[in-house]
């Protein structure tokens, strides 16, 4: 039985469709219940929905053999896992955003509000820029508007939220998409099953 951790939400639905098309269906998953674990004995798969940022923890700790997680989480938490495929869905960019006319004069510490503190720290360390990180858990966009920070580091999908708040992308840090990951020990002991899933899922990846 292969344990698969999927991220709750829109991305998870999309990814499940890929697994279904690859021959690993589990019809009850689409029924609207409060259940979190779904199993298809015949296909030897067990899916469970978890918070997107927790998928890598489930996989790293072996509670799930494989899982699907955004590259943003992998960059931020650097879990000890194998990254076996780029599913080319859930695409967005990790960006530095701020007021449209923002100019970093470099005279004082740059105040950066973000959920992704590790990512922000690493990005600014490359250029040696001294920053003050303000860790927030949501509604990051209002931080520069209220003067809490100079800029934000966050995921940008279409940029609509930024525009509505009079903000703009200032720098792109990296491109993000959903990745298929595997636990290192599971990869050894369930190698055939995992390799088969990976090759079948790869057939479902739509290239732009």
């Amino acid at each position, binding site marked *: 039985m292969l344990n698969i951790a999927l991220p709750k939400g829109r991305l998870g639905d999309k990814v499940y469709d890929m697994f279904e098309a690859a021959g690993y269906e589990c019809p009850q998953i689409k029924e609207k219940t409060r259940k979190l674990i779904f199993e298809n004995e015949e296909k030897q798969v067990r899916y469970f929905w978890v918070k997107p940022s927790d998928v890598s923890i489930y996989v*790293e700790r072996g509670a799930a053999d494989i899982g699907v997680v955004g590259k943003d989480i992998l960059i931020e938490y650097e879990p000890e896992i194998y*990254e076996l495929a780029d599913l080319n869905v859930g695409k967005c960019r990790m960006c530095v955003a701020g007021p449209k006319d923002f100019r970093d004069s470099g005279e004082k510490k740059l105040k950066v509000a973000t959920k992704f503190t590790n990512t922000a720290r690493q990005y600014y360390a490359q250029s040696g820029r001294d920053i003050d990180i303000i860790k927030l858990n949501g509604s990051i966009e209002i931080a520069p508007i209220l003067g809490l920070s100079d800029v934000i580091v966050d995921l940008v999908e279409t940029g609509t939220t930024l525009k509505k708040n009079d903000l703009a992308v200032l720098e792109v840090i990296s491109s993000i998409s959903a990745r298929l990951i595997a636990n290192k*020990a599971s990869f050894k002991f369930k190698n055939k099953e995992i390799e088969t899933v990976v090759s079948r899922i790869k057939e479902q990846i739509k290239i732009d």
Partner: protein
Amino acid sequence: MIDEKLLKNEEKAIFSLRSLYKKYGYMPFKMSKFEEYDLYVRNKDFLVSDRIITFNDTNGKLLALKPDVTLSVIKSGVDAPGCKQKVYYNENIYRVSGSTHQYTEIMQAGLECIGDIDLYDVFEAVHLAAQSLAMIADEFVLEISHLGILSALLEEAGGSDSFRKAVAQCIAEKNEHDLARICEENGVSAEKTAKICSFIGLYGDMKSVIEKLDKICETKCGRAALSELCELQALIETTEYADKVFLDFSIVNDMNYYNGIVFKGFINGIYEGVLAGGRYDKLMEKMGRKSGAVGFAVYLDLLETLGTESSKYDVDVLLIYNEKTDVKVVADKVRELTEAGKSVSAQKTIPGKLRYRELINIEKEAR
């Protein structure tokens, strides 16, 4: 006599590993829990985590609670040409855990062979690693890589240090998609990119992977590494663990310290590697030694997660007595029950959380 049932997995492992290493002529290496902090500052990158618990000795010298054993073994070892020093240890070390970001105490057992190392010593270390895993569990995998092959491939790809680091990272993650992108961004030819990408996919039994490596290892250094791997494979083939040893090039230890054969052991039921080791001549060189070294460590604390049947009961018998009960009656009853092989807890009241199989009340057996 020790009741084996009472021993935890890690305790059983300590006993069996100790006798295994002694059998092969490894001598016990006992050390102090403290080491001069300076030793770690000079070799910070070798450590899994650079955060170390430090304190001042009575003379003001900065000491550290050991985060590693290998450095101490090298430091105390002699550097005589032609000689070999073989030691084993069982020590607690103190590191910051990657998942909790807090200091943890890690029980570690392992061995080091330092000196005039040859292929036999590398084989012996690999063989002992496989035997160590076999002593802990039936289902295990020992994975081997050769850093010489990896560095020859990186050499061939050219590019800056940061590019090579990024490539090594992708290989460690089996991340073919990002590797292809990085190669493209750095102007690596399609042919070379395909070669490095095919390297990521190599996983399996030694013999079949070695056949595929023939096309990948084209440079002189690559060929030399491959030839060493072939010789090692032939030796492993003669052991009973041939079907448990796999080649996997995602083991990318720090190439500033390790060289040649490196390996990692996994046990079914434990989510991460329980054994890690390899050849570390470069660390020896950095520490001013002329000779080579090979060794490995088994992370015994991880064995705790191996499934053991936890008993349904804390004790077999809960024996209840009170102030009026004759003490001799209590003592006799306890003796009778323990001699019958039962565990017994003598109490005046029933403890809230105690789970017992049988309750015997002797309150009425008055003085």
